[in-house]
């Protein structure tokens, strides 16, 4: 077998067998999805509803009260603009609009009226529950002597509603790129140096560049394998969806992986022991994890922090992944992201190769 392939295979196989490290990368990513799934994906435990009351009558107030009385439903009466802004932000599940003339219709006079329910597409289980709850209350209201009131056909709001899982999947891809990319190469390569494995390889005729290239390639393959597993779990177990092109995910995933493998590689030129490599890797990965929009959108972060995280590659990886998967963005939307990651990858790997110490 060709030396490069054999060395790369050895690296990948060893990493797959290293269960402890897998727990901290793939395992934690899955755990985060489970936690967020339990927190937000729950089966109808709570429904948040904004109501736009265009009638301001006693009858509409009574109708709102009946909705309010349903267990697990939180109701706020809002202005039209306020309600639809909440829907856009995902802070409510649906908006219900009560038409003017509601009281007249309820009294059996004037035109029959329909209340209109606006839901974003996306999480189908929640959509169905909201539908059922509102239809039930409306039917009950009409049944008690208000025959002309009915629920209009469900209307999808013009918002691409993303579920927590849809948001978490690209985030966790970013998490794996960050943690696996940095840790596997940083710690793995330093350990090979400390245990004289690198020295042993160098006692064979294999070229030094081949040894290093195989480590970098092996590191990238481990990350990509974990991403494949995560995406499959995310889609088939957690019901996350990709609104964009799978093909377009390849450039940010590859470049992001190369950038972080490069940063891990760079750590090996500084760290003398595997403990030092671990500590340095933690110093790089943990702040980045919280500062780069993988758990929550960066818009919530202070200005200064945003500037810092704009320099580091994870924010760009996270942006590109979310753009593609959540917003269905095209390549033009992620070109800058990809260029920044490519610059990091080339810079880090070049510098690390130049500074590499064999012992």
């Amino acid at each position, binding site marked *: 077998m060709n*030396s490069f392939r*054999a*060395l790369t295979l050895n690296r990948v196989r*060893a990493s797959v067998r290293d269960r402890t490290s897998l727990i901290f990368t793939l395992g934690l990513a899955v755990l985060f999805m489970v936690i967020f799934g339990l927190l937000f994906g729950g089966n109808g435990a709570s429904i948040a509803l904004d109501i736009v009351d265009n009638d301001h009558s006693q009858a509409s107030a009574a109708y709102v009260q009946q909705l309010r009385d349903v267990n697990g439903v939180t109701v706020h009466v809002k202005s039209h603009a306020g309600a639809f802004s909440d829907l856009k932000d995902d802070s409510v599940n649906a908006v219900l609009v009560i038409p003017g003339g509601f009281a007249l219709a309820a009294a059996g006079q004037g035109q029959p009226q329909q209340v209109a329910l606006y839901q974003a597409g996306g999480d189908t289980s929640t959509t169905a529950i909201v539908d059922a709850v509102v239809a039930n209350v409306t039917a009950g209201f009409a049944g008690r002597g208000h025959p002309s009131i009915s629920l209009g056909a469900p209307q999808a709001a013009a918002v691409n509603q993303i579920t927590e899982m849809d948001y978490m999947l690209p985030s966790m891809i970013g998490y794996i790129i960050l943690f696996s990319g940095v840790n596997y190469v940083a710690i793995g390569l330093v350990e090979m140096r400390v245990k*004289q*494995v690198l*020295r*042993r390889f160098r006692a064979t005729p294999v*070229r030094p560049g081949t040894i290093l290239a195989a480590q970098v390639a092996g590191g990238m393959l481990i990350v990509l394998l974990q991403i494949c597993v995560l995406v499959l779990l995310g889609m088939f177990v957690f019901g996350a969806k990709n609104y964009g092109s799978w093909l377009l995910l390849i450039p940010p995933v590859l470049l992001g992986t190369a950038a972080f493998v490069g940063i891990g590689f760079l750590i090996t030129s500084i760290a003398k022991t595997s403990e030092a490599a671990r500590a340095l890797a933690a110093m790089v990965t943990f702040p980045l994890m919280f500062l780069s929009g993988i758990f929550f959108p960066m818009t919530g972060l202070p200005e200064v922090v945003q500037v810092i995280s704009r320099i580091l590659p994870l924010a760009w990886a996270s942006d590109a992944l979310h753009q593609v998967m959540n917003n269905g963005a095209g390549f033009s939307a992620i070109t800058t992201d990809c260029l920044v990651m490519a610059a990091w990858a080339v810079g880090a790997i070049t510098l690390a190769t130049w500074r590499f110490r064999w012992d």
Partner: protein
Amino acid sequence: MIRAEPMPAGVGLGEEMADIDVTGLVKRYGALTAVDGVSFAVEKSEVFGMLGPNGAGKTTTLEIIEGLRRPDAGTVSVLGTDVLAHPETVKERIGVQLQATALPDFTKVREAIELFASLYRHARPTAELLAEFNLEEKADAYTDKLSGGQMQRLTIALALINDPDLVFLDEPTTGLDPQARLNIWTVIEGIRKRGKTVVLTTHYMEEAERLCDRVAVIDRGHIVALDSPRHLIAQHAAGTTVEFARVPGLDAEILRRIPGVDRVVVDGQVSVTTRTPETVLHALLDPQAPWARPAAGDDGEGEGMIRDLVVRHGTLEDVFLSLTGRSLRE
């Protein structure tokens, strides 16, 4: 396949040419000179030992010859090729076992052999090596689950994977139990029987005495003696050594005045070298001697204060002691 090799340094000498030719080797680490002007030659098919305590410069010398380190001065020719100029050519034809295990994690025995096989142009079949080194049963075990002896057999197998003419073994039996050590000795004797040249480092005397045709005694970066074990013992360990536990009041000066004493070394214990052991023993065990009387406050059991007495004939240990004034395992 025949490849164009760089012109061997000693072309024309034919079989007279040494497998290894080292001249004036110097390696410094900051203020420390680890190897200080070492020169020697290793002939074809000989087992050449490098004997010395830890830090003597054995491993550094070995690693320079293997092409793993660059010397600050000196020349190294291995199998007729200048190592410093063509390390890859040399590496294709030598086998190396490092002092450390130096195997990647989470790798099985068979996988390790296949991995190293892929690093050479020509490699022996994995099954053949597994059989030869009695590792067939362990072929699918992870390398970190091997016993010390199995691990050494594996690392030696890896050193022979390219069927090299010249094999370097760095402390092949350090840390092994006596039986495993004996087993490795048999393995090394097998390598020699196939006409391969072996260079090994050790700090075990019995090992050097049993395996090596010639031994270089190394201390503080210098070769202090180089000869066959028998000649070294005859030359530098002439006579008998009497060893005993240190006795208060019996210092080296007093001992040196005993007739027949050639040399006295006091470290962990007292070693007295002599060619007339009867006279010296008589003097040492004389009940009238000052050191035979218990000191004031002693518990009184002190008849003959000399304890743990051992009398033995010369070994390489004595050679080292005689050449450096220190024992090997300090």
